[in-house]
Structure formats: structure tokens, C-alpha cells
């Protein structure tokens, strides 16, 4: 059983789809304390002693196993910085589910800054899923500033899915990656901001090795008075492929700044960026209205599909 109250459980379900302890290895952190931890034969979770955080060591060749490391904050006024390091052994193939949910009913800001470092061994494959969620009607802000560093060895593959759909007031995310020959990084980011939220997402990806590749795609919706900045930079130092895409819908008085950056330092680097920002197309709403939806239902369908 997990040592969590009702709100904690609801948040856990939102960020990690968990209703009970998950299969495999896990570390569940609640209000700066451990609410449950389990290592498996192939995946060892070791708490750090110098700073707050854990080390996750995945043995070479580990296949079809998962690690869940969700974080729940339900107390107002908590500020924490957590350093989690993942060492993924050669040839391993694993799923890592992170995610943080804050419920802040109080008047003081609550903040969780998770700094994740991934050391991905030769030929290893990692699927990383990270969901952010906020709830609570207190005046205190819900703040998440994640930092993610990825170091990929030869022939490794990392797929990251980062989702922040609701309730987080302030986010400043920095993701950096360095890729060795043949390594592949795929990022799918989905973001929706509303109210007066701000979200900044910055990527710096260095394609150092021959035939390395990166594909970073962000889909986002900015509603009400919210503001987003998407700043994606790919540096090609070798024969490589890089692609960034920012596709955004603005509504109400929302604002979005897209700053695509490409730097080619090798004649065989092939880098592409695409960015599109605009409101929902009127003919899309009209089509759904001819199918019987009213205007707001049509908008909802379009946004849900867009952020799927």
C-alpha cells in the first residue's frame, strides 16, 4: 500500500496513470518524502546521500522492464530541487515514467524542480514519459522547472514524451542532449497553458556523432492570457539529421514565441525546422458544427485531437 492521502492518490493517477503500486521498479515521492520504493533484480534505485534524489541503475541487457518515479506535492509552500540520475546499461530496453503533480490549495507557492540526467549506454533504448499536472484553488502558484540532460552513446535511442496539459502556473524547462554516432533522439512535447500561465521550453541538442539524428516536435495551445516560448536549437557537428517543429494554436489573448535554431558545423549536416502558429481554422469549427457540435464543443474536439 502507498502512504498517500486522497488528493495524493488523485494526483498520482493524473501524472502516472497509477492507482496502486506499479509493476517493476518504482520510487514514489510525496511532499519531499518517500511514499514507496522498490528495486528489482535488474533495476536498482539508490537514494542519494549528498543531495535530494535517486540514482537508477539499469543493468545491461535489461529488456521490457519499467521504472516509475512520480512526484506528488500536496502541501502549500514546498520548494524542492531533486536530482535523479539514470544509468541505462548497454543494450537495455526500458520504459521510464516520471511526472509531477502539484495540488496547491494554500496561498504560498509550491515548486518542484526535477533535474534528470540520463546516461544511455551503447545500443540501449529508453522510452521516457513525463506528465505534469497542477490542481487546487489556492492563490499559491504551482511551479515546475524541469531540467533534463541526455547523454547518448553509440546506436542508442531515446524517445521522450512530455505532456503538460493543465494547472501548472509556471514552467521553465531546459532539455539538453548530446548524441554519439548512430544515436537517435525523438521528442514529442504537448503543452496547454491557460489563465495567466507561462511556459518556456528550451532545447539544445548536439548531434556530435556520424549518422546521429534528432526529431523534436512540439504541439501546443495557449489560451486566455497565457504565454509560451518554444526555443529549440539543434547543432549538427557531423553527418546527421535534425528536425524541429513547433505547431501551435493560439486562442483568446494567448501569446507564443517560437525560436527555432539550427547550427550546422559540418557540410553533411541536414537540419530542418518548421514553425506554425495560428488560431483554429474557421472551416474546422464549421465542419464539426455541421456534424451537430456547438462551437465550444467543436473547439474542444479540435484541441483534444491536436494535443493527443
Amino acid at each position, binding site marked *: 500500500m502507498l502512504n498517500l492521502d486522497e488528493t495524493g492518490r488523485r494526483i498520482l493517477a493524473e501524472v502516472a496513470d497509477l492507482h496502486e503500486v506499479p509493476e517493476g521498479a518504482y520510487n514514489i515521492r510525496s511532499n519531499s518524502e518517500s511514499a514507496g520504493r522498490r528495486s528489482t533484480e535488474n533495476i536498482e534505485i539508490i537514494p542519494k546521500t549528498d543531495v535530494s534524489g535517486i540514482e537508477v541503475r539499469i543493468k545491461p541487457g535489461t529488456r521490457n522492464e519499467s521504472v516509475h518515479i512520480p512526484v506528488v506535492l500536496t502541501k502549500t509552500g514546498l520548494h524542492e530541487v531533486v536530482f535523479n540520475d539514470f544509468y541505462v546499461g548497454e543494450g537495455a530496453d526500458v520504459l521510464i515514467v516520471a511526472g509531477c503533480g502539484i495540488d496547491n490549495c494554500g496561498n504560498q507557492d509550491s515548486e518542484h524542480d526535477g533535474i534528470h540526467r540520463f546516461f544511455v549506454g551503447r545500443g540501449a533504448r529508453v522510452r521516457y514519459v513525463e506528465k505534469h499536472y497542477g490542481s487546487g484553488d489556492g492563490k499559491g502558484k504551482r511551479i515546475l522547472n524541469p531540467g533534463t540532460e541526455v547523454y547518448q552513446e553509440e546506436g542508442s535511442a531515446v524517445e521522450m514524451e512530455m505532456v503538460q496539459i493543465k494547472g501548472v502556473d509556471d514552467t521553465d524547462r531546459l532539455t539538453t542532449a548530446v548524441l554519439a554516432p548512430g544515436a537517435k533522439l525523438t521528442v514529442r512535447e504537448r503543452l496547454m497553458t491557460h489563465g495567466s500561465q507561462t511556459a518556456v521550453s528550451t532545447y539544445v541538442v548536439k548531434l556530435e556523432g556520424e549518422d546521429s539524428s534528432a526529431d523534436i516536435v512540439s504541439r501546443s495551445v495557449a489560451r486566455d492570457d497565457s504565454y509560451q516560448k518554444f526555443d529549440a536549437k539543434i547543432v549538427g557537428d557531423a553527418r546527421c539529421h535534425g528536425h524541429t517543429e513547433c505547431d501551435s494554436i493560439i486562442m483568446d489573448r494567448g501569446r507564443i514565441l517560437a525560436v527555432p535554431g539550427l547550427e550546422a558545423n559540418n557540410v553533411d549536416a541536414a537540419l530542418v525546422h518548421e514553425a506554425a502558429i495560428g488560431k483554429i481554422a474557421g472551416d474546422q469549427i*464549421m465542419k464539426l*458544427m*455541421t*456534424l*451537430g*457540435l456547438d*462551437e465550444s464543443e467543436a473547439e474542444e474536439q479540435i484541441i483534444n*485531437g491536436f494535443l493527443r
Partner: protein
Amino acid sequence: MLELKNLSFSATDGSGEKEIVRGVNLNFEKNKLIAITGPNGGGKSTLARLIAGIEKPTSGRIFFLGEDITDLSVTERARRGIAFAFQQPVRFKGINVLDLIRIASGKKISVSDACLYLSAVGLCARDYIGREVNASLSGGELKRIEIATVIARGARLSIFDEPEAGIDLWSFNNLIEVFENLRGTVKDSTIVVISHQERILKTADEIVVLSGGAVVRHGKRDDVLGELIGTSSAVNYCTGTAEERGGAEVC
């Protein structure tokens, strides 16, 4: 079932106000397939959009099943039983074919039921059901999906705005069957097809000829068709130009 009373529509362009539909009076009964034809720019599509509520008339009234729907929104008209197939289907990022068919049917129908609507328009259902309705689909595929959404509505009045434009010969042949089936499944339903394809006109019960925004002829097929053969209002799909076929390169 549908009555248009003195319906007019004007739009302003660079050269000033232009009357696109002028004083149209039409009465369509239930259980009919009605083809609206006429030269390009004659106001056919605008008339269809006025019925669906996408455009609002400058003057005149529209009655559907005895109710004045002139002031009703697109949504309200849809909910009362009017379905509309766009000439240019709309693309969506993220919404897939199954989503669209479910929205159209108004209920969470099973995947296999949704597939039936795709099969009806000649698409191999399992290849398409999970596809996004986006630019990865060809114009012809989008058009067939558009028609499938209208079939899924099961509406009393289904309006097709140039359904043959941009589709290949096979689906063109199939269209006739689609109309027949639709009439068979929805009781007392009427279908209005905007088209100048001779073969579609030949299957209609009634033909309306719209020119310069006004109705110049409305009558039973056999009475009207003879006057149209050989004009741009009744184009033979196989001998007409590609432009007349809506761009389809066939035959």
C-alpha cells in the same frame, strides 16, 4: 420538407456588392433525390451553404420540416436533421477518421460499425479508420471520408456539394449507389446533390437549374434533362474535360 422562400444572398467584393442568390423559391418534398445544376458561378454552392446555415441570407426565409430555420445556427440545423458534405473537405491535425465518424453519428459507435461507413464509400476500412484526417490523405480519400461522415449522420436532409469533384471513376460510380443506400436507410429522407454530371442528373427525381443566382428551371428529371444534355449543366463524365470532372484524370 424543405422550402426556400424568396431567398437572396449578397456579398461584397472588390467591385462592390454582388447578388449571388436572387429571390429563390423552391420546395423539396420528402423521399426525393434532387440535383441542382447550372453553369459555374451560378450560385449553386452558395445556395447549399445557405440551407446548411454556413451563410446567412440577406433576405428570405428557409423552412425545414415545417419550422422556420432561417435564424438557426449551423449546429441547430444539424441537430434538426440537415447534413452537409463540403466541396473542399476540411483537414484536421490529430483528429482521426474514427473520431470524425463518431462525431457524425452522434454516438460512440463501435469500430466495426464505423468501418461500414468507410466501406460504403469504397475505402478499405482498416487502412483508414485510425488515420488522421490531415494532409497525408489525398484529395480523393478526403472526399470519400467527407461523404462517409454525411452517411453516418443518417440525416433527413443530406446535401452534397459537388461530391464527384476530385474523386476517381470508381468512386464516381459508387456515388450513385451511396445515394440509393442513403435513401433506403433513412426513412423519408431527401438528398440534394449539387452537380453538373449527366450521370448524377440521370438518377435524380427532380432537377433544378440555377443560373445567375436564380432558378431558371425546376421540374421532373425527364422534363428537364433533355434540355440540358450537351450544355455545361450536364457534362458527360467520360467525354467532358478534366476541369469539368473537377480535376479527375480518368477515362
